[in-house]
């Protein structure tokens, strides 16, 4: 078990290096010169002398590999440089906007789990019933509706027509409802489909037949055995989709004027604020890698066969 965890953690290192290399290349491929951008944002008249001094300060006059190593050291210290636009440290700006995004993401994950676990499970054990047809319809349309359009449809029906929820902004729990639903629907679609397929597959397994011949109550078989094993692909999906969820928040935040990290990122793209873009991509990649690790460890706890197989988790 210990070696399995160690192996999984070791596997992170190359992915992490790849991500940093990517963002490092981003800064150097970008036509914006950091020193120039910094000076113009600070309204300092850029002369060759000041420019050279700033370039030295930012370490831009050093050879590329030294710059790369320095950038990794800085990243490990959560130093993502200074925003060209606001002249404040990027990390400060990001942590200021993070709670709103986390609130939104958590809201929709919880909603997605609350809906898709019972729905997918019931659809699986009652194949071709009404609830099964409903779940299939939902998972199909949930995957095909563009989320920005869905957001406006919800605003139109629930805010404009029925006046139940506020149109946009952040604050009370009512503000959270429509954005979470918008963000959760594609997830509900995916998880319901995964769980349904997995339940159907597990019902064919010999252990179900064996449990039935032993006379174990159907409810116990389903609840205790089938659900426990069938939920595993869904947990994998949950981890693999945290990154997707983060990109989903970009769109949902734009629709509902949610003052989070995603909107900040889009503004940064418009303003060519490269350190912010770099920070977002790195954090998203980090979150993605980290969530995959957590998911693998959770699965190891649920299904001990994984660590015994020696780390072939998927």
């Amino acid at each position, binding site marked *: 078990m210990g070696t399995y965890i160690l192996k999984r953690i070791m596997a992170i290192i190359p992915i992490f290096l790849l991500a940093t290399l990517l963002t490092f290349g981003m800064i150097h491929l970008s036509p914006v010169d950091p020193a120039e951008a910094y000076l113009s944002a600070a309204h300092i008249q850029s002369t060759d002398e000041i420019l050279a001094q700033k370039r030295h300060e930012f370490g831009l006059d050093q050879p590329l590999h030294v710059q790369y190593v320095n950038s990794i050291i800085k990243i490990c210290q959560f130093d993502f440089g200074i925003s060209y636009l606001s002249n404040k440290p990027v990390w400060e700006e990001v942590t200021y906007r993070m709670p709103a995004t986390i609130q939104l993401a958590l809201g929709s994950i919880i909603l997605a789990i609350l809906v898709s676990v019972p729905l997918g499970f019931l659809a699986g054990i009652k194949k071709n019933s009404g609830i099964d047809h409903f779940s299939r319809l939902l998972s199909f349309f949930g995957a095909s509706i563009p989320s920005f*359009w869905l957001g406006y449809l919800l605003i139109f029906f629930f805010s404009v027509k029925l006046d139940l929820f506020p149109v946009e902004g952040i604050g009370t729990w009512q503000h959270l409802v429509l954005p979470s639903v918008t963000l959760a629907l594609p997830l509900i679609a995916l998880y319901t489909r995964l769980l349904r397929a997995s339940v159907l597959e597990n019902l064919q397994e010999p252990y179900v037949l064996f449990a039935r011949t032993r006379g174990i109550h159907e409810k116990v078989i389903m609840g205790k055995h089938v659900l426990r094993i069938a939920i595993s692909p869904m947990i994998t999906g949950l981890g693999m989709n945290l990154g997707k969820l983060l*990109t989903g928040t970009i769109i949902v935040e734009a629709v509902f004027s949610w003052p989070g990290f995603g909107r900040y990122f889009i503004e940064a*793209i*418009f303003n060519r604020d490269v350190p912010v873009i770099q920070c977002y991509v790195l954090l998203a990649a980090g979150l993605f890698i980290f969530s995959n690790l957590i998911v693998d460890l959770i699965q190891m706890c649920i299904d001990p066969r994984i660590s015994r197989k020696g780390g072939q988790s998927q």
Partner: protein
Amino acid sequence: MITSLRIMMRSQKVIVLCSIILSFLFIITILAPWIAPNDPIAVNLANKLQPSSFEYPLGTDHLGRCTLSRILYGARISLGFATLIFISSLGIGLIVGTIAGYKGGWVDQVLMRLCDGVMAFPNLLLILGLVGILGPGLKQVIIALMLVQWVYYARIFRGMVLSLKEQNYIAAAKISGSSQWKIIKKHIIPNVLPPLAVMGTLEMGWAIMDISAMSFLGLGVQPPTPEWGAMIHEGKSYIRTNPELMLYPGLMIMLVVVTFNLLGEALSERFGVKRR
């Protein structure tokens, strides 16, 4: 056997239906300049926010532009560029996949790890990162989408080349004296086409969704060019008074994406291709 036959019949029907809808959409796309009732970018403020009439079948937007014409021209962007992305990422995938499969060894390892790396991250994140470097604009979005989507085709083509090299039935065909062309026609293409068709239809749907999402965010198509995602973005300010401005383009996106997804699903059912 009977149930599988039923599934086949059912998916056959869906395939036919979806193909009809899509061909219809593609014909409209090509004919847009001739069938659109008005100029899609002609501003006429005296006519703004008109309800549907004989001259403007779906009404006009906040600048007095004909909504129907804008939707028709918008189809050119969505479907046209999705097709372009499909063809070019197919091409890149063909080249990379063939090289990886043919060379093997470390070349294969490096290229496949690169594919893994691209696949590991969510598409939209990579696209946004690339647009972040290249700057906003339709051209940049298209390039970013191509750079992201070729990996799926590369895998399919690599598998094809590997099977050419290693599979027993290919060896058997060679031994029994089949010509190279006959092997490709009889054995390779029938094996490669189904996964390619499934992948292609699903990716068209994703590409259309991504293009419109980027345009919605203001990073893709720039005004006044009509595009469905951008139209939703423009229409959102009039959600209280003229909700149809954002309703119609959204319905179009959904119709196209649903049709591509249905087709992809039916194709994978029909040919027994496992979806990723």
